[in-house]
């Protein structure tokens, strides 16, 4: 009994000490326990800052007034009233902000009138700078160059300072203004002919203070694509669709998009893909489940981190060509020759192109002296000439993702399309934009819509395959880049659906540039050796060094190269592109 009592007293004392100790502790030591993830900020918006314009001050001179006017143009979308306060009533009535936005370099010069005109009632002041780009009304960002200058008429304001009496229509922004208030944005539409893959459309969208960036993106997605993709793509968001609301829920883990309008049940997957990619690829709602509602009712849900096939390039096998024989390129180096005739060494075959993989098999096309031949990469595969003519008259063959082979007959100025499944020969495709042009290269992108057209030896243009079926034609031709006269473009290949790799031989050496076909933004890739040809698939870039001795692969840092084959390498190849 005494022992039990002592034991009880000891337990009571221990409990009291523990209780008192934990009671005195502000944050008791504890764990492990499951912690609920809190949403990392607003998944629908992007932080940004913007210009705050101020009204013209009575003590300002011409220079301050013109800079204030330009700042007011930068803030015009947020607060139009400030810009109007710089204008005389007459100018207010005439001037309109509509039209393309002119983008100039940050260093703008205000050129006042000569001293002898300084006493005139109307002062003509010039804004001068370097032309950078133009943002069209369809949000296309088109880089331009050259010098820029516009005249402005100023009059003295009754209360002091100056007012603008006349000015050119449209807004003038500096590069910094655009960088501050605009975001390069990828919109995704469906390729028109197959509707099995998304096509990216690059635009510059202005951030708005009154709505989230997600709303801005989706509002733009409801509109038609830019002029470069006109008639080349379609959208699963039918005309008349409106966005009722976009909100994030469940601690930011879920984003709910409520649409209204004549939504089609059959295009549910495509609509989901368009919205998901248009948001996620612009770092909006990334890693979140996107629930799409139609008129408040659940329509479809895009789960986070699911890999859908809407950007699938259909084949990631890398090849290289040595002495006319096509070899596989494995992870560690040479992977052996391909099966069939394509794997045999053969002279006179050049400009190889591999088609999209179908059931693990691909076709390879090559230019010969008598035309263009095709072979299947199977044991029984034999070369078969499908387009006849003088090989030098054709551009290098290129495969479309629908399985057709394309080339441009420079002699007859006709674009040819050969469909192996049709059983017919090569058929001409209408390409009115190419008439009269010296087409030297033509490559169809992996999205099946965009087409790179190289004219002459140093100009790259982008066009698109518009229409479908028999009405398909090559249109929407637009200049992308050009080099100095003395330079020469050695090779051009598609990287991913929006980037072109352009290998230029200049007097200073070889230059490899990655160009975004949407807005012309280019990124240089440093080279350690002279290259002869390149091939790319997404982030993976292979290059053949001069003389074909080595095969290099660009590392993930996009700065250094790793040799894959040290000797007896050759021109690298990826399916399509």
């Amino acid at each position: 009994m005494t022992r039990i009592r002592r034991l009880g007293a000891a337990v009571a004392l221990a409990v009291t000490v523990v209780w008192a100790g934990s009671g005195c502790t502000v944050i008791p030591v504890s764990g492990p326990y499951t912690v609920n993830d809190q949403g990392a900020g607003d998944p629908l918006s992007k932080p940004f800052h913007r210009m705050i314009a101020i009204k013209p001050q009575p003590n300002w001179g011409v220079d301050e007034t013109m800079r204030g006017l330009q700042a007011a143009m930068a803030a015009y979308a947020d607060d139009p009233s400030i810009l109007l306060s710089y204008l005389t009533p007459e100018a207010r009535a005439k001037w309109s902000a509509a039209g393309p936005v002119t983008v100039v370099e940050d260093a703008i010069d205000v050129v006042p009138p000569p001293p002898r005109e300084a006493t005139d009632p109307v002062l003509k002041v010039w804004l001068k700078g370097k032309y950078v780009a133009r943002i069209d009304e369809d949000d296309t960002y088109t880089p331009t160059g050259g010098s820029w200058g516009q005249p402005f008429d100023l009059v003295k304001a009754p209360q002091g300072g100056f007012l603008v009496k006349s000015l050119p229509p449209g807004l003038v922004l500096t590069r910094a203004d655009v960088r501050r208030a605009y975001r390069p944005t990828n919109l995704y539409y469906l390729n028109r002919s197959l509707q099995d893959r998304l096509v990216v459309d690059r635009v510059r969208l202005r951030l708005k203070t009154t709505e989230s960036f997600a709303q801005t993106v989706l509002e733009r997605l409801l509109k038609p694509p830019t002029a470069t993709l006109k008639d080349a793509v379609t959208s699963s968001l039918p005309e008349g669709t409106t966005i009722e609301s976009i909100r994030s829920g469940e601690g930011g883990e879920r984003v709910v998009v409520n649409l209204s309008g004549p939504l089609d049940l059959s295009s549910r997957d495509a609509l989901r893909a368009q919205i998901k990619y248009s948001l996620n690829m612009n770092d909006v709602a990334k890693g979140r489940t996107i629930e799409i509602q139609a008129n408040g009712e659940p329509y479809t849900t895009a789960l986070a981190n699911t890999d859908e096939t809407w950007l699938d390039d259909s084949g990631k096998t890398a090849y290289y060509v040595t002495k006319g024989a096509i070899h596989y390129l494995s992870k560690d180096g040479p992977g052996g020759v391909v099966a069939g005739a394509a794997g045999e060494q053969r002279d006179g075959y050049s400009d190889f192109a591999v088609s999209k993989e179908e059931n693990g098999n691909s076709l390879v096309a090559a230019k010969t002296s008598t035309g263009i031949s095709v072979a299947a990469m199977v044991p029984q595969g034999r070369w078969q000439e499908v387009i006849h003519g003088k090989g030098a008259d054709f551009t290098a063959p290129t495969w479309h993702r629908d399985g057709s082979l394309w080339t441009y007959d420079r002699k007859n100025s006709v674009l040819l399309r050969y469909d192996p499944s049709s059983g017919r020969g090569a058929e001409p495709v209408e390409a009115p934009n190419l008439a009269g042009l010296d087409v030297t290269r033509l490559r169809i992108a992996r999205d099946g819509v965009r087409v790179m057209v190289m004219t002459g030896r140093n100009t790259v243009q982008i066009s698109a395959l518009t229409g479908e079926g028999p009405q398909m034609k090559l249109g929407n031709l637009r200049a992308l880049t050009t080099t100095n006269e003395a330079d020469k473009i050695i090779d051009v290949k598609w990287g991913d659906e929006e980037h072109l790799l352009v290998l230029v031989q200049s007097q200073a050496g070889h230059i490899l540039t990655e160009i975004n076909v949407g807005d012309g933004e280019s990124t240089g890739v440093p080279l350690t050796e002279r290259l002869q040809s390149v091939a790319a698939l997404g982030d993976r870039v292979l290059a053949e060094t001069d003389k074909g001795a080595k095969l290099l692969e660009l590392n993930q840092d996009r700065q250094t190269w790793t040799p894959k084959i040290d000797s007896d390498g050759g021109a690298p190849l990826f399916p399509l592109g």
Partner: protein
Amino acid sequence: MPPTRKKRSRRRTLRQILGGVRRRIRRAAGRTRSIWRRSLHLQVVTSTLVISVIVVVVLGTFLFQQINNSVVQSSQQSSSGEATADRLRIADALAPETDDPAKAADGGDKGAADPLDDVMDTITGSRDDASEKRYEVLVLNLTNPGKSRASNSVEPANVPVGLRLSLQRNIREYKYDKTVGFIQSIRLAGESQPQLRFVVGGIVHVLPTGENYEVYHFFPFNEEEELLTNVRLAIVVVGLGLVLLLAAIAYLVARQVVSPVRLAREAAERLAAGKLDERLKVRGEDDLARLANSFNEMAANLALKIHQLEELSQVQRQFVSDVSHELRTPLTTVRMAADLLYDAREDFDPMAARSAELMQAQLERFESMLTDLLEISRYDAGAATLDLDSVDVRDVVLRAIGDSEALAERHTTRFELRLPNEPCMAEIDNRRVERILRNLLFNAIEHGEGRDVVVTVGADRDAVAVAVRDHGIGLKAGEDTMVFDRFWRADPSRARTIGGTGLGLAISREDATLHGGWLQAWGQPGEGSQFRLTLPRVAGSDLKGSPLSLVPPEIEMRRTWRTAMTPVLLPASGDGAGFDGTAYDRAGYDED
């Protein structure tokens, strides 16, 4: 004039309504006060509730203020720290590049990009490698165009006016290091409702150019507000729970204490009502158990004493009864002898004749005293019974007056009769009622000082009443009840003139009580007195009132005239007016 009348009528109605409301409130307050005074339980629980509410409110307020200060101050400190860091960044960025060759080299590849944009990229998290910030920033330079920036949707109009003015004053006074804070609900563009924000305003002064940048930081305080709202809710809920818990505890504790006290009270009441065998249950050994023990002992002792007193009283009554009976036999003999002597007194010498007359008179008095003693013994023994008969009370009154006329003539007193025309039938014992009336009339004659004696008979549906009014010296205060005590006399030195025994009014009251009636007295010195006998028409039924007023109507009327504020004549009835606690001056009065 009709409108005036209408107005008056409305005013009267309003007054009546107000009066009604006031009366109801007063009645409710009275009821509440009564419940409050009577219930110890309620007092304990209410007091505990009130005190605990006060304590909880005071402690809760103090606690909330402490938490509030801690949360808000720590948030303000961290916020102003971030704001200071940002201002330093801005100042560093805006400083001329020549001051910092390293920065000049850095900025070379950015071309002519505004350093303000670069630093705003970092501050707002707009840059790809920067982290998103929880607050908004506004940089204002009102002198240089294109040098003002704002993050996200914040606008210059969102800055509190007071803060703006304070900052501009600091600029005028060259106090560039002074930072000003402001907490205000602000609605930014795109927000559906205002949010509580802590706005910190500071100045970045660029020395070489002399430019001043007003830098405002908008820190959201909604999380702190939510936290403090939850804390406040928790304190309120816990406080409420605590108060209710304390009330419940007080209820239980009070119940433990009050219940035995209540049982003791009920037992004491029953004991007081005559249930001498009432006892409390004793549980345990605590104070309440000891109280119960003491109560039980007290009750037992009380019962014993009462029993002893009853026995003693019984013995005394028996003794009186026995003595009365025993005295009657020798008295009869003495009476017979005295009668003989009295009859033969004319043959005696004058002294002996006078002695015989005196003896005869005292013997008569002795005899009637014995009769009264025997009668009252019967009452004490509970042996008195009624011989009920339905009679007209007027006849009884007339008979009693007839019996008293001889005495009245001797005192030169006249009777004034006020009898109703209708018969006043009642079930009464004729003999006893007549005796009561006789006693009252004899009393009135003796103390009426020769003035008129007014005899009034009244009747209503339930009762009949007879009032005998004299205009003698009256009764003093308190004597109106003492007159019915046995052998009581107002002035002991005063001799009895009509040879009363001192038991007349006591027997009369017993007679009235035996009928289920009342016998009450009223008197004032110099105003005379009035005795009122009230009897139920049906024997055994309870009396609810008397048809006649105890206070004579003329006295009541005079009093009303003298004291009333409003000239309203009150009815002269007012049963029990002499028993409502009003102090009357009463002259000394003794029974017959």
